[in-house]
């Protein structure tokens, strides 16, 4: 079995296992929703080498786009989700197009600035977004004959979309496009010298990432029935990035691990101690210092330590690595 099918199988196992081990369908859905957002973030961070603080913009816009569609029109839920993905893709294209004009720290600062800009836009236009209160009472309409009212029914719907999105992202990552992104990450100057219009590749990566993140934001708004202002806040970008980094930027399944870990641990800790974010910060420091390949790297090491450890070294060079270079 090749690596991609193995990872897809693992993702499917996660989707099947969550209902067996979790009591709340809402929390389980949240895991998969953020898994999509983190995997989309990984396409930029792990594959293209772009540390984007703009992910919260796309997530929040997805929430608003789906919420507004369902509140003000009678369009079906599927259309609302599609519009959210399109909104995410369009805005990500714009943010990407402007931000990649600069590299390294300046690129990061630009995405950060856009993040603040869109947050204040959402805050200012209270009539549309509900401002501080968020966009309330978003209906979770049925899909054809299937009602999504029950939290586990909704989970099943989210899980299906998650697997489709995960497979699509895997396809993108292993396509000639994805392989070129790895080359851009490795040596942008050389990529340009052998003929690749590097900027178009980065913008396309942004668009794909934005579409998936917008979809995730829409699913999140439907999950809680609200498109809160916090979905477009800077903190959302940060959370998505932290999930991606904790999981490891080496492959897409690592992001699923990162999202699962973040969502579940946050839930556990927040019920015990209101200052739980402090612990999460500590964990991030440990990951940055000692486990740069994240949770996935940790698992890899454990598998290697087993007597059956069977990973071939030749496979690894094609993988993006999460060494601290190439912001």
């Amino acid at each position: 079995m090749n690596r991609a099918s193995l990872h897809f199988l693992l993702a499917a196992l996660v989707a099947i296992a969550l209902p067996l081990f979790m009591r709340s369908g809402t929390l389980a859905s949240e895991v998969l929703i953020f898994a999509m957002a983190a995997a989309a973030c990984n396409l930029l961070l792990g594959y293209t080498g772009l540390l984007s603080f703009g992910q919260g913009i796309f997530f929040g816009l997805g929430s608003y786009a789906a919420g507004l569609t369902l509140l003000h029109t009678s369009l079906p839920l599927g259309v609302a989700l599609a519009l959210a993905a399109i909104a995410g893709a369009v805005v990500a294209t714009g943010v990407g197009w402007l931000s990649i004009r600069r590299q390294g720290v300046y690129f990061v600062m630009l995405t950060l600035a856009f993040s603040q800009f869109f947050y204040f836009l959402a805050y200012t236009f209270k009539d549309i977004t509900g401002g501080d209160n968020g966009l309330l009472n978003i209906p979770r309409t049925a899909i054809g004959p299937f009602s999504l009212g029950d939290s586990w029914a909704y989970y099943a719907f989210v899980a299906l979309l998650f697997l489709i999105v995960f497979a699509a992202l895997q396809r993108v990552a292993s396509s000639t496009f994805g392989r070129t992104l790895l080359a851009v990450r490795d040596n942008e100057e050389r990529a340009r010298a052998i003929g690749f219009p590097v900027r178009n590749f980065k913008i396309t990566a942004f668009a794909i990432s934005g579409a998936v993140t917008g979809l995730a934001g829409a699913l999140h708004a439907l999950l809680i029935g609200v498109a809160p202002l916090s979905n477009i806040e800077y903190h959302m970008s940060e959370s998505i990035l932290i999930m991606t980094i904790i999981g490891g930027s080496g492959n897409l399944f690592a992001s699923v691990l990162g999202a699962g870990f973040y969502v579940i641990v946050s839930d556990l800790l927040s019920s015990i101690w209101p200052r739980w974010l402090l612990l999460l910060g500590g964990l991030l420091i440990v990951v940055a210092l000692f486990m740069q390949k994240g949770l996935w790297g940790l698992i890899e090491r454990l598998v290697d330590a087993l007597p059956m450890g069977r990973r071939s070294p030749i496979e690894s060079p094609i993988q993006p690595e999460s060494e601290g270079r190439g912001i």
Partner: protein
Amino acid sequence: MSTQAPILAAEKLGVRYGSFLALSDVTLSIKSNTIHSVIGPNGAGKTTLFHALTGRVRASSGRITLNGQDITHVSDDRRVPLGIARSFQVTSLFQNLSVRENLRLAAQGRSPLQALAPWRGVDPGGHALAVADEVMERLELTHVSDRAAGELSHGQQRRLEVGMAVAAKPRLILLDEPTSGMGIDDVEAMKALIRDLGRDHTVLFIEHNMGIVMNISDTVTVMRAGRVLVEGPPAVVRDDPEVRRAYLGNMITGDLA
């Protein structure tokens, strides 16, 4: 040979970095299917000339034509599909990717827009991989095809650096000091390779090793302080008094004739 139309021509080319004039009034004509070398002391503007010809640096003045087509304002990546490919003086590879993947990417760079399709397989027709295999064979890198480029020895990395340009199947190939930092045995192999490349491509190369320059070039351009000092066949250039003065008479010791 002199009756052939030039494949690449530069007219009064100038490049300015801030107030520093790195290149001024360089007029150059590269004839098709020749091996053309550029020599000159450090800081003469050789690499800047390469940057300008490949589009990495914008020309501040003058114009560049490729087969008669004006490419002065064509960006560097777009010049590759037009048939120009280069190697760098300081090795510039995809260090974390395998040798084969490096060359596959370089071959794919000829039709880069195909690679923008996120649903397209890595190399459906197998063309790019076939080119990669062919180039590895030619450069004796087949036995390390699956190794990451960053793990290769210096000599192998320099060969792969040249291979990156070859894999694009260019009409004009620009090599920036292909032998830099190489051991004696590797230098001989590189000399044979450049001569061999001259059969299928037009080669323009920068080189400090006068043994190679005088031996395999059809034309030599000597640069100094951002200008062309002399240009001509190796024998003429070697005996030129100006060149002898520029080099203090002690560098040109090629084993020609």
